[in-house]
């Protein structure tokens, strides 16, 4: 083997080592959560890297807890409602911002961007008052309403980017045919926007599914909790006796659907995230 070939082989070896380290770093914690969740509580306190005899008792226990199932249902309802609401409100807004030139457009865009940068805690007390005044405290509606503060700016921003990229000719033809803006939007542009809607909807869903601060503050009883709060509040006899097996089983259960979604829609998610951040 010549020196040149040797150098090439070494470089290639080093490269794959780096990729290996990267994958280990990214995936190991989740893998370890799965390993832990498949252990009976007696084997929990000896460290092991492999699954020897999978034991599903943790999953059985978690899935028999009514409050945990309830939390999953609540999270699903809240997230799906927020996504629907945010997409519905932002499609029309994105048409106005992405296709029509008018005075004040820049200001509205800046306002939307500004809201997306809000620290959530800054509206906590004011929002608490609004929610109490509307009689929504400790209901899913409180969360659906409050989650629009971070989903709506995002969906508006990304959909405006996508909307602006659609060809002009289509809309002009519609205008020539005398179509109203509403018809132009729903009949001409919307059918082309489906991929963008799926992407933004998915990202908004993940954001709503993962939210913690509002869920912790605006709900009180187990019947209204969402998944992140339910998991954060799983506790044992004392801080040092957390039921780690159960905790990991619950964590894996609520994360696996997200991981599958991300793996399937990877390309779309990347385009949505970068459209939201870079093209602004």
């Amino acid at each position, binding site marked *: 083997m010549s020196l040149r070939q040797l150098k090439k082989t070494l470089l290639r070896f080093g490269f794959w080592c780096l990729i290996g380290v*990267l994958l280990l770093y990214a995936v190991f914690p989740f893998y370890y959560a799965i390993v832990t969740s498949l252990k009976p509580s007696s084997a929990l306190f000896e460290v092991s890297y492999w699954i020897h005899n999978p034991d599903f008792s943790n999953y059985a226990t978690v899935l028999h807890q009514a409050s945990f199932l309830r939390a999953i249902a609540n999270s699903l309802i809240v997230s799906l409602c927020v996504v629907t609401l945010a997409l519905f409100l932002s499609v029309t807004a994105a048409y106005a911002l992405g296709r029509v030139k008018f005075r004040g457009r820049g200001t509205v865009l800046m306002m939307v961007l500004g809201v997306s940068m*809000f620290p*959530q*805690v800054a509206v906590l007390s004011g929002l608490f*008052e609004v929610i109490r005044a509307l009689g929504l405290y400790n209901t899913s509606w409180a969360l659906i309403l409050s989650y*629009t503060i971070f989903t709506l700016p995002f969906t508006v921003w990304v959909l405006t980017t996508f909307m602006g990229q659609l060809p*002009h000719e289509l809309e002009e033809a519609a205008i020539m045919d005398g179509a109203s*803006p509403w018809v132009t939007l729903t009949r001409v542009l919307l059918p082309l926007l489906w991929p963008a809607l799926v992407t933004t909807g998915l990202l908004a869903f993940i954001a709503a599914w993962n939210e913690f601060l509002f869920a912790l503050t605006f709900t009180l009883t187990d019947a209204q909790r969402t998944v992140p709060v339910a998991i954060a509040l799983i506790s044992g006899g004392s801080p040092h006796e957390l039921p780690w097996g159960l905790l990991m089983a619950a964590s894996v259960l609520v994360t696996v659907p997200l991981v599958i979604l991300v793996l399937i829609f990877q*390309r779309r998610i990347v385009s949505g995230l970068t459209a939201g951040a870079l093209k602004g």
Partner: protein
Amino acid sequence: MPASLTLAAHDEHLLTRETPIQRRRVRAAWLFLAPMLLCLALVAAWPLLRTFWFSLTDANLADSGGGSFVGLSNYLFHDESNWSGILVDPQWWNAVRNTLHFTVVSVGLEIVLGLLVALLLNIKFTGRSLVRALILIPWAIPTIVSAKIWSWMLNDQFGIINHMMLSVGLIDAPLAWTADADLSMWAVIIVDVWKTVPFVTLLMLAALQMLPSDCYEAARVDGIHPLKVFWRVTLPLLMPALLVAAIFRILDSLRVFDVIYVLTSNSSSTMSMSVYARQHLVEFQDVGYGSAASTLLFLVVAVIAMLYLYLGRRQMEVRS
């Protein structure tokens, strides 16, 4: 179709000048914006104004009367020889210090690691899209869940991190990652970096793929060392994207709540401004004082956000 041809020629005219069609479109645009603006007014603008107002009152969570006006005394109050209020509360300044410490270290690490990973994944190899999908996993995991997974891995007695470090000989005795005041901030940073590097990587990767390839070919032909190409060509061209990613991450880190709340609860060695504000608002039920803390946090974030918008606008002007 002749009609559409002339239309294309006068495209600018039809869609921007004061024609009846354009006027109708502008009216429709505002109508289309109205529901979104109303919603944001209800959940963002109005609550924010109320928070500002509450910070000037002695409102309490227990009574819904809204409290009475007390001026700036939540911020600073002089009573005979005593100063009180947030601005002289050592806990608040501790929270400010923690938040800044967290922001500087974690954003710095995320940008460097994100850039390195993006450079690695910018090389074409078989299975690249699979690797790219797999590194998205930390980003998809809810913050609460990743905080719990890591607090199990960092557990002082049974955690795998201590086990690994002990068996390699890095440490002699297990470390109390989340309880030790000197280590707990590092634990928080480790979890946050793990979760957000994928996001930075994606942004960097997208920016890398937009770079002009002719520069690189010219450099290769001239036989310039790759490291020099990186410093002289890649990094300057990546700067705008790097800045955007950094600002996004800085704004996110300044309002950090979930990771810290789950990993170390209300421990004062990691308490951030958001945790401090929520503790006063909800646990101590002191809406006035908590709102004052929230207002201060908002002001900090607003200044940085404005800086970003200003820079962004200037960049756009330069580009056009």
